[in-house]
C-alpha cells in the first residue's frame, strides 16, 4: 500500500489549468523526484498535497486515510513535512528554536496550563534531539544565530532541519538546491541520503538540478503543463525523447 496516494488531482486558476488530472503514488521509504519546466505545476501539486490549496477534484490518501478535507496543520501532524521554494522561516528565531518548536508541536505541547504550571519549557531530552538534528544538517555552529542574519544557503538548511525535526514519514522538498552552490548542494544530497538510510523517510523532491535529483532518487516523475508525461526509473526517464523535448527543446 502506498504511503501517499494522490488520484486525479485537478486544479484551475480561472482559465489556467495548473493540474489536469494528475495521479501520484509514493511508497513507504521511496524517493521520488518531480521535475519539469517552470509552470508545469510542481509547486501547485505540493500545495495541493499539503493542504495549502484545495484541488478542484481528486482524492489524496496518506497512510490509508483520506486527507483531502484536512487543514495543513493536521496533515503535518500525521507525518508530512515540507520545505518551501521561497523560504518560510520564523524570523526572529534561531535554528535551534526552529527545531525545538517543531519537536514540541509534534509532541503535543502548546497548552496554556502547561506553561503556567512550569512544564512549558524544553526539557533535556528535547534539547538532545534538537542537537542531533542540528548536527545531522550541519548547523551546530550557527544554532543560536537568528535566521535573518544567515545566508540563503544556510536558511535552506534550517528549513530542512525544521522539516526533519518532526521525524516525518514523508518529506516534501521544493527546490532545496535553488540558490545553493555545488558544495552546499552536495551536503543536501548527503543529508537526504543519510536520512533515508537511517530513518526510512520517504522523499518527494521537486528540483531543476537533474544531477542532484539523480543522486538522491530512484524514480522520476516529469510534469509538463499540468500533466504527467513520464514516470519511471531515473535513467529511463531522462533518456525518454518526450521528456527531452519538453525540458530541453527540440534541437538535440
Amino acid at each position: 500500500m502506498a504511503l501517499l496516494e494522490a488520484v486525479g488531482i485537478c486544479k484551475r486558476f480561472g482559465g489556467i489549468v495548473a493540474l489536469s488530472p494528475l495521479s501520484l503514488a509514493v511508497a513507504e521509504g521511496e524517493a521520488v523526484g518531480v521535475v519539469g519546466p517552470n509552470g508545469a505545476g510542481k509547486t501547485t501539486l505540493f500545495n495541493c498535497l499539503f493542504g495549502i490549496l484545495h484541488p478542484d477534484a481528486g482524492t489524496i490518501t496518506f497512510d490509508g486515510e483520506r486527507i483531502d478535507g484536512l487543514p495543513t496543520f493536521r496533515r503535518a501532524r500525521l507525518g508530512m513535512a515540507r520545505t518551501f521554494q521561497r523560504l518560510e522561516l520564523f524570523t526572529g528565531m534561531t535554528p535551534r528554536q526552529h527545531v525545538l518548536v517543531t519537536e514540541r508541536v509534534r509532541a503535543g505541547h502548546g497548552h496554556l496550563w502547561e506553561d503556567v504550571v512550569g512544564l512549558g519549557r524544553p526539557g533535556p531530552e528535547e534539547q538532545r534531539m534538537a542537537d542531533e538534528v542540528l548536527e545531522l544538517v550541519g548547523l551546530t555552529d550557527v544554532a543560536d544565530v537568528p535566521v535573518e542574519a544567515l545566508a540563503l544557503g544556510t536558511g535552506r538548511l534550517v528549513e530542512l532541519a525544521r522539516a526533519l525535526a518532526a521525524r516525518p514519514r514523508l518529506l516534501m522538498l521544493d527546490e532545496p538546491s535553488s540558490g545553493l552552490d555545488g558544495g552546499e548542494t552536495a551536503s543536501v544530497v548527503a543529508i537526504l541520503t543519510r536520512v533515508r538510510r537511517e530513518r526510512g523517510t520517504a522523499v518527494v523532491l521537486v528540483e531543476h538540478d537533474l544531477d542532484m535529483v539523480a543522486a538522491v532518487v530512484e524514480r522520476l516523475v516529469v510534469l509538463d503543463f499540468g500533466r504527467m508525461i513520464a514516470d519511471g526509473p531515473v535513467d529511463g526517464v531522462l533518456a525518454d525523447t518526450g521528456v527531452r523535448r519538453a525540458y530541453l527543446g527540440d534541437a538535440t
Partner: protein
Amino acid sequence: MSQFLSYALPGIPYGCAYALMAVGLVLTYQASGVFNLAFGAQAYVSALVFYIAVHDHWPKWAAFVVAVVVLGPALGLALDRLLFRYTRTAPPLVKLVPALGLLLAIPSITQAIFGSAVRDSPPALFLSPDHVYFHLASLGVTGEELATTVVTVVVVAVLVLVFRSGTVGLRMRAVVESPRLTELAGIRADRVGAFAWMLSSFFAGLAGVLLATVYADVSASNFTALLVAAIAAAAVGGFSSLPLTLVGGIGLGVAQEVIGGYLPSGTILSSGLRPAFPFVVLAVLLVARRTFRQGATATDPLAACDPPPPSLRPPPRMAEVALGTRAFTALVAAVFVVTALALVPGNWEFTLTQGLVLATIFLSVTVLTGMSGQISLCQAAFAGVGAFCAGQLAMHFNMPVLAGTLLGGILAAAVGAVVALPTLRLGGIALALLTLSFALVADNVLFVYPWAGNGASGVVIPRPTLFGASLAGNGAFFGLALVVLVLAGMAVGVIQRGSVGEQLAAFRGSETGARSIGVDVRRLRVTAFALSAGLAGVGGALYGSLQQSVSPNDFNYQFSLLFVVVVATMGVYSVAGAVEAGIAYTVLQQAVDNLPSRYGSLLAMVFGLAALSYVRHPEGVVAFVKRWVLDRAEQFARFLQRNDAPDPSEAAAVPGGGR
C-alpha cells in the same frame, strides 16, 4: 416614495463628504503603502489655517493657496522625508504606528501653535453654505450640499483621469511594492515617494477646507470621526478603486440617512445604529470580501538587501551585567513602591496606582501585538467590557468587586475570542480595521445599553474588599494594583517563554511555516485574542474601581489607538515595556495637567512624536536606550575583567537572563 427621497437626497452630500475622505485615504494607501489614519488630522490643519486667514481678512483665494496649495504639499513632503521614507519596506505594524502617532501629534502641535480657542462657523470656499440655491423634489439644496457634491465628483473624476492616462499612478504603485526594483528601472524612488505624499497631503488639505462647513466648528476630532466612518466607503472600493470608493461613499451616506429616517426613534438601537452604521458596513465588508483575505502579500524581492532589523529579543548578557540589571530593577521597583506609599501626596499616589492599572491593560497589547503580531485597535473596548461587567455585578447582585473583576476578565476573554473569529481570514491592516469597527460599534451601541455601560450616566464600581477588610484606601488599592500587575506580568512572561509563546513566535515569523510544522494557527490566534482581552478586562475593572465610576466615554476608540501608540513606542515585545508605558503615561499626564491649557495636549504630542522614533526602533525607544546602556556596561565589565585576570581563557559571554 417622496418620503424615501426626503431621507435619501440629503444623504448624497453626506455621502460625498465620506467619499472625499475615503478617496483621500485610498489615494494615500495606493501611493505610499501607508494606511494614513492621520489623514483627518492633516485635513484639520489646512481647515484651521484657512479659517484663521479668512478671519484675518485675507481674500479667500489667498487663504486657499496658503492653506491648501502650499501647506498641504509642504506637510506631505516633511512627512515623507522625516518619516515614511524609512517605512517603505516595513511590515504593517511599523507603518501604522507612525500614522497613529501623527493622529495624536498633529492636532496637539497645531493647538500649541494656534491656541485652542473654539472656531465656529467655518467659512465656505465657494457658495454660501446655508443659502438655498434651488429645490429638488421639494427639498432645498443648500450651498454647502451643492458645493460638496459637485467638487467631490469633479475631483474624483480628475484623479481617475490622471491615474489612468499617465505613468504617475503606475510609478507610485511600483515604488510601494519595491523601491529598489523601481530604481533598477531608472526611476528615482525617493522622488516618486515624496511626490506621492505631497499629492495625498494636498488632497487632505483640499478635503479639510471643503468639508469644514459640514461641522459646526473646526476641530481635529470631527475630521477624524469622519475619516473613521469613511473607511467603510474605502472598503467598498477594496482600498484600490477610486470610482467604487465614490459610489461607496455616496451609498453609505444615503443608506445612513434612510435607515435613520425609518428606524423608530428613541430606542438605543436607533440612536446608536445610525452613527455606528458605517462601522457595521465596514465589518461586514472586511469579512465578506475576498480582497481583504490574507493572501500571499507581494513581498519586495529586494527586501533582503536591507540589513536585518534589530533583534526584537534582547541579546543574552554577561552574567555580571545580567545580575546588575536584576539588582537595579529590584531597586527601582522598591523605590517606586516606597515613593508611592510614603513619599508623595495623595493625588500622586492615585496617579501611580492608575499607572499600575494602565500597565495591566497595556500587557494586553504586549500579548496580542507583541507576541502574536496582530494589531488590535479595540483594547480599550475589552477593558470596558471588564469594567462594566464588574460594575453591573456589584450593582445588581452585590457581588464583591474582586470577584467581579475576575468575572469581568473572563467575560472580556470570551468577547475577545468571539471578536477573533471573523479576523481569522484577515491579516495586517484589514485585521486592525475589523477590530476598530468592533470598538466603534461597542462605543456607539453596545456600551450604551443600561445593562452594559449605561450611556452617559455610567456605571458605579465601589472600591474592593478582601475577606471583609476594605481596600478602599489609596494605599491599600495601590497594593492591590501592584499585586495584580505582578501576577499578570508573571503570567505573560511565563507564557512568552513557554510553549504557547514559542508557537506565537513561529506564527509571527511565518504563518505558512507554522502551519507546515503542525501548529493549529486558528486556535492559537483565538487564544491570543482571548488572553489579551482577558488581561484588558481585568485592568479595565480595576480602573473602574479606582475611579469608582466609569462610562463608555472612558473606553472609547481613541484610547484604543492611544494605547497602541504608547506601548509600541515604549516597547511592545516585553513585559517591562508595558509596565514602563503605563507608568510613564500616567506620570506625564499628571505633570502636564499642571501646565496652562494651551499645552493640554502636550502629552499626546510627546507620545505622538516618540511614535515617529518607532520607525527606527520597532523594539521600542526604552528598549533601545536600555540596550545601549547595557552594551556600555558590558564593555566596561569586559574591560575590568581584562585588567583583573590577564589570562587568555577569559570568560566568554555567558547567556544570562537579560531583561
